[in-house]
């Protein structure tokens, strides 16, 4: 249990998707103009990560890993399908996004209206595929660990994008040099936020 909690905290602050690995940067820059939209995107990312990483964990465990097909019989113990993982993961993500979109539209129309166009866009957000690939690379031991990693990473992305959106709303009133306006200053501020987040590196979990 403690291990699961540690992974959760670690993936929010120390291994933050945006500041430590630059994942989901494109939408991070493109959608962070106002706090409202960035809250929507952040929520959608948490949502989709929370679904796709556990599903991909099960796929990896019972289908793709070297020796994962043992449950079919002894003669499959040698099979290694890990080269298929990219295409499997992205297929799961694309279809899960579609599925989540339909379910949310049916059962939570208010949430659907607030997430709006962000749900379909998320299929091509690097943070989502990155979550699954990191899950595979770091070899999490159980479904619980994978899920807490997914939720933590999603929350980390949420914090980052809401933070930068708030700063960008304020910086609108500041006197930024012309050529640096817009994305230039956004990059530099993100760098500074990254430095701030690096202070969490000292935490030992």
């Amino acid at each position: 249990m403690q291990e699961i909690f540690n992974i959760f905290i670690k993936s929010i602050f120390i291994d933050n998707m945006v500041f430590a690995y630059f994942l989901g940067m494109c939408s991070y820059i493109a959608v962070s103009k106002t706090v409202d939209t960035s809250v929507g995107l952040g929520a959608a990312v948490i949502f989709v990560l929370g679904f796709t990483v556990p599903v991909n964990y099960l796929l990896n465990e019972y289908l793709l890993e070297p020796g994962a097909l043992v449950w079919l019989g002894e003669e499959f113990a040698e099979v290694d399908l890990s080269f298929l993982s990219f295409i499997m993961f992205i297929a799961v993500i694309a279809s899960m996004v579609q599925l989540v979109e339909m379910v949310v539209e049916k059962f939570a129309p208010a949430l659907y209206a607030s997430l709006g166009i962000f749900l379909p866009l998320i299929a091509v957000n690097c943070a989502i595929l990155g979550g699954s690939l990191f899950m595979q690379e770091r070899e999490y031991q159980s479904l619980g660990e994978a899920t807490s990693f997914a939720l933590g990473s999603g929350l980390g992305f949420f914090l980052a994008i809401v933070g930068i959106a708030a700063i960008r709303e304020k910086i609108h009133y500041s006197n930024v040099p012309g050529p640096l306006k817009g994305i230039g200053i956004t990059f530099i501020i993100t760098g500074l936020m990254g430095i701030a987040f690096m202070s969490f590196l000292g935490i030992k979990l």
Partner: protein
Amino acid sequence: MSEQVQKESMFSPKNIKLLTDPIGKDNPITVQVLGICSALAVTAKLEPAIVMSISVMFVLGAGNVIISLLRNTIPQRIRIIVQLVIIAALVILVDQVLKAYAYDVSKQLSVFVGLIITNCIIMGRFEAFSMANKPWPSFLDGIGNSIGYGMILVIVAFFRELFGSGTILGWEVFKSIGLYDLGYVNNGFMILPPMALITVGIIIWVQRSRNPELIKE
């Protein structure tokens, strides 16, 4: 339409423009703001940056041609999934080749080879260009955009490796010109993630102050 195309030579000014525009004033990273995730993550050293640029060039060039050939047969509703499958297949090829012939670099790039799949440059070019254009212009567009992408990667990686580790492609520049004897110390901060963002920010600054027409807002 077809007559027009027949008259047009393979390297007409219009086609050349497709190749050169993304390098300068329509650069995918600094102007279109696409594909930043991977651009920042692999630039601590020059070698992975170059390998990454070549991989993206292969995926984008080949992918643009394939999509362009299929553009009239892909149903509109499922086009994203079709595009993703094509990219994923190409990326698997790249990944397997890297694992076989450049294992060290492939370890350094870790998940970022896989993340070429969700590199927004590729989806962006598919959607914006090759779904609506013939194979040859699409190929040029793909190569042009990946050169523009690679160029920024190489510039960022050059400065980060030079000041962060004092080397270029592993060759110890600062040591050979005797800078350390004068008391110079490597700036370890350059290798850390935040510095990549700040370097790109500065490149954007320089580019926009030289081309004021790029300034928006």
